[in-house]
């Protein structure tokens, strides 16, 4: 039994140790904001924060979690009704098309800016490289991140 927090709420992890955090969040906790895209660490749709760092929840097993780990998902990226600056920028730049990849994109971008508030274009590309958007919203993702980093 591992005691962690998910979006601030205390949770005792139990069940199949091999289960990826992705499916724990989606199926056991019913938190479907975190998306399944590939299950293989290839697309970034499942990105969440563990202790502030972006991780692929499809590649993070329950067994990999430590007592005291803090998981944050897209559902808690906003502070109550106040959107995260990136969420606001996503809306201002009309980034989403279908929207399916965007939870992962936002979580990845949020961890980038937390570590590096003023990334260069190359640093943005490197950090966001693992997040696929099949609809092709990359140009606006870059613009939205730049807008927040320059703010």
């Amino acid at each position, binding site marked *: 039994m591992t005691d962690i927090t998910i979006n601030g709420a205390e949770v005792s992890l139990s069940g*199949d140790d*091999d*289960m*990826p955090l992705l*499916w724990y969040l*989606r*199926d*056991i906790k*019913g938190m*479907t*904001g*975190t*998306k*399944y*895209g*590939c*299950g*293989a660490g*290839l*697309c970034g*749709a499942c990105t969440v924060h563990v202790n502030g760092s972006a991780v692929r929840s499809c590649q993070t097993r329950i067994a990999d979690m430590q007592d005291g780990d803090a998981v944050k*998902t*897209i*559902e808690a*990226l*906003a502070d109550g009704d106040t*959107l995260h600056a990136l*969420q606001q920028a*996503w*809306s201002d730049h*009309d980034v*989403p*098309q*279908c*929207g*399916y*990849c*965007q*939870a992962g994109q*936002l979580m990845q971008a949020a961890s980038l800016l937390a570590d590096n508030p003023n990334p260069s274009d190359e640093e*943005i*590309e490197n950090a*966001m*490289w*693992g*997040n*696929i*958007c*099949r*609809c*092709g*919203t*990359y*140009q*606006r*993702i*870059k613009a939205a991140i730049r807008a927040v980093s320059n703010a």
Partner: protein
Amino acid sequence: MNAVPPTLNAAQVSRRAVVRGLGITGGLILSAPLVGCGQKTSDGLKGQTAETSAGDAKLDPSVYLQIDEEGTVHVFIHRVEMGQGSRTGLPMIIADELDADWDRVNFIQGNGDPKYGDQNTDGSTSIRKFYEPFRIAGATARAMLEEAAAQEWGVARSEVKLADHKVTNLVSGEAKDMGAFVAAAAKLPVPAPEILSFKTADERKYVGVGRKIIDMDGIITGTANFGQDVMLDGMLFAVAARPPVVGGTVKSYDKDAAMAVSGVVDVVELPANAEKPYLFKPLGGVAVLATNTWAAMKGRDALNIAFENGNSAAYDTTAFEQQLWDSVSAGGRVALKRGAGADGLEQSAKVFEADYFVPHLVHAPMEPPAATAAFAEDGTLDIYTHGQDPQTVQQTVAPYVGLEPKPDQIRVHSQLLGGAFGRKSKPDFAAEAAILAKVAGKPVKMVWTREDDVRHSYYHTIAAQRVRVGVDDMGMVNAWHHRAAYPSIGETFDAAATGPSDFELSLGLTDMPWQCEHLQVEACDAPSHVRIGWLRSVANIQQFFAVGSMVDEIAKAQNEDTYEYWMQLIGDDRVINPADDIAEGGVYPNYGESADRFPIETARLKAVLSQVKDMSQYGRTMPKGKGMGIAVHRSFVSYVACAVEVSVTDSGMPKVDKAWIAIDCGLAVNPDRVKAQMEGAVIFGISIAMHGKVTAEDGRIVESNYDRYPVARIDETPVTEVHIMDVDAPPGGVGEPGVPPVVAAIAQAVSQATGQRVRRLPIADMI
């Protein structure tokens, strides 16, 4: 796109605007005439009498606009959202004509009820086919509310005005919310359509201006519900092992081993689909039901399943390519012939010949397919899914569960689509969910994994083309002979429908806009060994890749500027109707639209091309290792030109640095979404041109996830500039027409940058 060209029959279209109560007290319900018919314009409605009707669904398929006494405007959206923006664009049209406050519009997703008419979100048709009916709905409601207000105030109709959600008495200055007149308006006769007035372009508030997509907040906060996200009380999660070769059947599996996995609840065999046509029927195999997706996946791994491989077990795409070339060499059915056709080449001073090849492609939308099915106590069924067409979901599911494909028996609850690109119009996954829910006696969510999606799709076809083009003494084209061999989408529905159909050929070949004397298009036979389906832009992908590349090849071979060559090939301003040259018994479907309302206009082709030349400064001298490409194409009745600039990177792989697009889609209802679709088309086009390839060995699809089926990532993103032409024409398609010219322009630019002519996709294979 539909595989079968829609037939237009204007005479059968019911042209009635209908008001009726529908049991909702005090509401004004307006059902707009709504049929997928291009001819129907407000002009076309003249002389028709409006009448009240009990609403025979067959004759009067309708979408509903409802305004309640609180003044809330309920718009029923009968098209699903997959990123293209229709869920926002369609209500904008009604709200604008009604002059409603956007914040007081309530959006209700249609659920497969035939009263909403055709709900297939496909072929870039949502705005194109429904702009007119939706604006008529809005204008009719506005007229009725104004009439009700005029009567109450005892003034002439011309002395009241509905604007900003309020009706104002222009004489007294009194103003009331539109809701105040709903009850009275609902009792009025429907105005004859000819007296309706429509907003001018200057008066529009939303259309042509833009609104943020209605799902924005849900998407950025993670609360938007996609097909994969459905959660019902007590539901089970299912994953299936399907035959790796299409048409295969289950030989053996270890049920006990799967049942032994913790969380697994049941193991259920799915009905086989061993014979052509495969239709939208599930593929068969064995499903594992569990209390969560992960357990179901583990259970599936434990099945140790073996299959009989059926008729397509020898399918090998490398060997099949040779078969396609043999078919091309043999020649095929002449689908279109102008002048002397291929014989015209004998009059040419010089003949150029080139072979082009495009492999199978797969949609791979970010969200793999999923459907959740739940039976109600009375035996009727609820399906929560992201099908592109709820009615196709009903029809596909019904025979498997002993129900009729009717909305009172099968209720389809459309979820957001996490991308689709054509895959989700084939709801085999929904039938699987329904079958399993029936067996389990519980709600079941059928989850497709990414590997399932890539390995069990309805693939974009595999195509070989031979193009022979003759030029005269002046170097201008006098004859174009085009042979295409590829398995047809039609074969998914009819085992005898092998080889390119007229419908497929019309997407870039029989509609070639050249002003040349001799033209011949041949369909060379090719059988299918996988399920073939439509994928964003459909046959335009391979056909315009060949056409757009060939134009550049001939121009460059003669030291001509490709832009100038396009212009000369297209020739004088005129309207083209390919139907004139189609072989006897054949058709030119024109994307399901009439040639009157959506003609092929060469002036519009040239206008977008010239715009893109100006934006890109095409024709600049390129340093070594860089190249430019330029192409223009009409598809889905919109005109798109694209120019790109590429450079060869250190790895040898070319990269698109810049892209310029000009689109003429007639009226752009939500301009930012048009722009977004063009930006997306550039990325989708890069994926196709650079990386896209699905192969088969021993009948099995080799690729399985984004590692072996790479798609464009953020580092491949060019700086993209989009220009939307200001054109007074009805709205055309937007979701698909961007892709074809992007692919052709990239192929040209890479040819220049690398010095190696691109005649096969993907380009990654060439490096």
